[in-house]
């Protein structure tokens, strides 16, 4: 255990005993030990002069931090509905059988643990797993068999076939962003010629709206930050792409990192910020090396650091922070809390980040795609940018397309494209449902395929999941409800308890024990979550249930056993303890609920 304390102390010193680096310190400590033993948390708290309970609070918040030992190989299956449709469940059972371990358990010798995790952002090349935090794609039975033997042989990850870790961009349709060659520095030069005010005016003319989902006007955000009192402004890039079914930011970070960082620098030019932070979701940690290399290149080229492109007073640099498995951190105030080394709990607003953001400083938080798009505005001008798309939704939108289609991947379309058009392009035969915008988005049924991707019609952060006639919309909704219950931060009552209750109701229906009264309760919970939740996670958690209940009600009704009340309390399950104690499992030790009807 002294070793653990030493590793923890080294991580703290690397971050100069800075409490705001707590999450990074915990991640690095765990990298060294495999998990976070109690003594390591105590040591970290002592060195940072924080209450130990606060450190424990942060360690317990993030899915990828473990306060109990996990396997030396930690294999997590992406549990999004799309991965499931690609066969994850069977593959996971097969792997567990081969390794003689149960899901969620550590093997007796501590070699391996297998479990599920929220969508890892590989919907176009799944089924996917994370092995010790690194993405492995295109799983099939052969790959599972090989992985099992690599694990049994104790082969270090570095010696696993490199092919397993290959992540493709799968860019299927290029528009103005993905189609252009980008010369690093060119957009910055163009914006600097216009001056800070002139540049912001171009952004205003472009009508650019946030691509992360909320669609807030970028220029308004930047202006508010510029005008906020305080000289120490911050630009944050939100690369916590956690919405199930979304992966376009992963592709931008992999293939267009120069553009993303240049966009952050353009935001700094507009607002006067000197510090930049990119919050990278833990699932994309394999991109860290590449992103740091791009940052180094940009520093060497004078595009980051003091006196950018020789301009006196234009100093800006970027740091990367790693997340650790928490969807809620995509919410901008939760992201700021996480950047400050805290639990990712959304803040009370107002005040807004543009005036009180990172460490209380005026902060702009923009999505990866939004920032990349600003390079186009710098190069072409705001008016040219606004010439594509619709009047309320200017420019193009990247879609992450996955599910039942021939060509999953990333597609760039001008805003206003119809869903039918997209379905045809991606080779979707017999589409029944499209889930646009991820788990928190909109469920689109066949009769709505004429609708358009745009803030004023069907808004989306980028996810576009296709389900054909074989699929069950109820199971899709149930998968998303499980996701939200797992990802709720637990701060407010309606979301903490409501998502857990909703999960219980959906499972009750799925097990064939539902009654009509359960549907009424589900609708009541949906309303409460929508109305009373503290942040967007809770208020959008019931969306897939609300939509599928309206558009695919028979999928629910055929699961009902009775038109009135069936208790959620399972009498037979309650006898389990007695059965274990008496060592009985014969029919006489069971109550068959069906016989009671």
């Amino acid at each position, binding site marked *: 255990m002294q070793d653990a304390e030493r590793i923890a102390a080294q991580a703290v010193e690397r971050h100069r005993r800075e409490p705001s680096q707590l999450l990074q310190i915990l991640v690095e400590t765990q990298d060294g030990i495999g998990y976070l033993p109690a003594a390591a948390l105590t040591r970290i708290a002592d060195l940072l002069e924080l209450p*130990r309970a606060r450190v424990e609070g942060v360690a317990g918040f993030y899915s990828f931090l473990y306060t109990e030992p996990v396997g030396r190989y930690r294999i997590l299956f992406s549990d999004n509905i799309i991965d499931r449709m690609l066969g994850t469940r069977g593959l996971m059972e097969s792997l567990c059988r081969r390794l003689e371990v149960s899901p969620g358990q550590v093997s007796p010798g501590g070699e391996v643990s297998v479990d599920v995790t929220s969508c890892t952002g590989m919907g176009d090349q799944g089924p996917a797993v994370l092995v010790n935090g690194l993405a492995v794609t295109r799983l099939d039975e052969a790959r599972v068999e090989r992985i099992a033997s690599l694990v049994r042989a104790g082969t270090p990850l570095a010696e696993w076939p490199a092919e397993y870790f290959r992540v493709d961009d799968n860019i299927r349709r290029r528009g103005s962003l993905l189609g252009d060659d980008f010369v690093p520095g060119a957009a910055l030069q163009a914006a600097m010629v216009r001056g800070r005010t002139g540049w912001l005016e171009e952004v205003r003319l472009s009508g650019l709206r946030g691509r992360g989902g909320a669609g807030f006007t970028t220029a308004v955000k930047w202006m508010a930050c510029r005008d906020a009192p305080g000289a120490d402004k911050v630009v944050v890039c939100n690369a916590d792409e956690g919405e199930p079914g979304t992966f376009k930011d992963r592709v931008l970070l992999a293939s267009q990192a120069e553009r993303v960082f240049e966009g952050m620098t353009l935001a700094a030019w507009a607002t006067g910020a000197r510090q930049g932070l990119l919050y990278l979701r833990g699932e994309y940690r394999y991109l860290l090396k590449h992103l740091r290399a791009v940052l180094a290149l940009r520093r060497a080229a004078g595009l980051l650091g003091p006196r950018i492109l020789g301009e006196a007073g234009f100093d800006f640099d970027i740091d990367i922070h790693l997340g650790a498995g928490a969807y809620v951190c995509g919410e901008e105030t939760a992201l700021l809390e996480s950047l400050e080394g805290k639990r990712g709990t959304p803040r009370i607003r107002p005040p807004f980040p543009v005036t009180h953001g990172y460490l209380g400083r005026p902060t702009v938080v923009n999505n990866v795609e939004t920032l990349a798009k600003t390079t186009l505005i710098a190069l072409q001008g705001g008016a040219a940018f606004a010439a594509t798309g619709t009047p309320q939704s200017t420019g193009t939108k990247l879609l992450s397309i996955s599910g039942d289609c021939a060509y999953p991947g990333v597609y760039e379309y001008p805003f206003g494209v119809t869903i039918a058009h997209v379905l045809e392009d991606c080779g979707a035969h017999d589409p029944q449902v499209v889930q646009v915008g991820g788990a928190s988005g909109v469920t689109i049924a066949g009769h709505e395929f004429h609708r358009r991707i745009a803030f004023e019609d069907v808004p989306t952060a980028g996810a576009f999941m296709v389900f054909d006639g074989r699929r069950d919309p109820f199971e899709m909704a149930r998968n998303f409800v499980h996701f939200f219950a797992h990802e709720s931060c637990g701060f407010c009552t309606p979301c903490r308890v409501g998502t857990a209750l909703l999960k219980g109701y959906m499972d009750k229906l799925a097990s064939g024990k539902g009654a009509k009264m359960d549907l009424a309760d589900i609708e009541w919970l949906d309303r409460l979550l929508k109305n009373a939740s503290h942040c967007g996670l809770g208020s959008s958690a019931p969306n897939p249930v609300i939509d599928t209940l309206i558009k695919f009600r028979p999928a629910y009704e055929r699961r009902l056993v009775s038109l009135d009340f069936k208790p959620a309390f399972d009498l037979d399950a309650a006898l389990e303890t007695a059965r274990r104690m008496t060592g009985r499992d014969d029919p006489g030790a069971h109550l068959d609920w069906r016989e009671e009807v």
Partner: protein
Amino acid sequence: MGGKFLFDGRPVPFEEGQTILQAARAAGHYIPHLCWHPDFPPHGSCKLCVVKVGGRHVSSCALPARDGMEVESNTPEINGERRALLQMLFVEGNHFCPSCEKSGNCQLQALAYELDMSSARFAHFYPDRPVDASHPDVLLDFNRCIFCELCVRASRDVDHKGVFALTGRGIRKHLVVNAESGRLADTDFAVSDRAADICPVGVILRKRVGFAVPIGERKYDEASISSVAMEKGE
């Protein structure tokens, strides 16, 4: 710059910086709350103080009052939602009022009476939350925790000790104390701390004074929580 807003149709004056809840209280109107406390900044987690402003639901403890606002609070719709929030708090923990030392002094119980909550409605979670009786003067019964964080805030901001914190996430969120052993006895917590008498429910209980006042003669046995709040300022 202060002003006036309409609270359930009645004009309520406010001063600049006052929240809806503060201004309403000052004018004699009670809004239910659990995580809000007059001595602490708004927290906004319990959502019992939810009101409707211009058709939108907001937390009245956190939202600054604005001139001309129309606030709906004591309506069947909002009280129905508050009742459901109470039911959620009851089913996620283990609340067994008849044997609880806090009965009659408990704000959760008192609000359930106030808002006519006659059943739990939802299925109980029956979580496993062992008690911590290690401290010589205080018992921690986590079964009743509603995550208002008043003890966390009082210990951090008033006592400057940081004895309490929350860990876990979602429905697995739970209260922990500032010791590697996880035992309150191994912290510097003292019965004289502000955090020792801030719990609105029955988590933090003093030892050796249990049932000194019989159930039936306690604060909320004598008067409803709204009148206690408005008349005694509690």
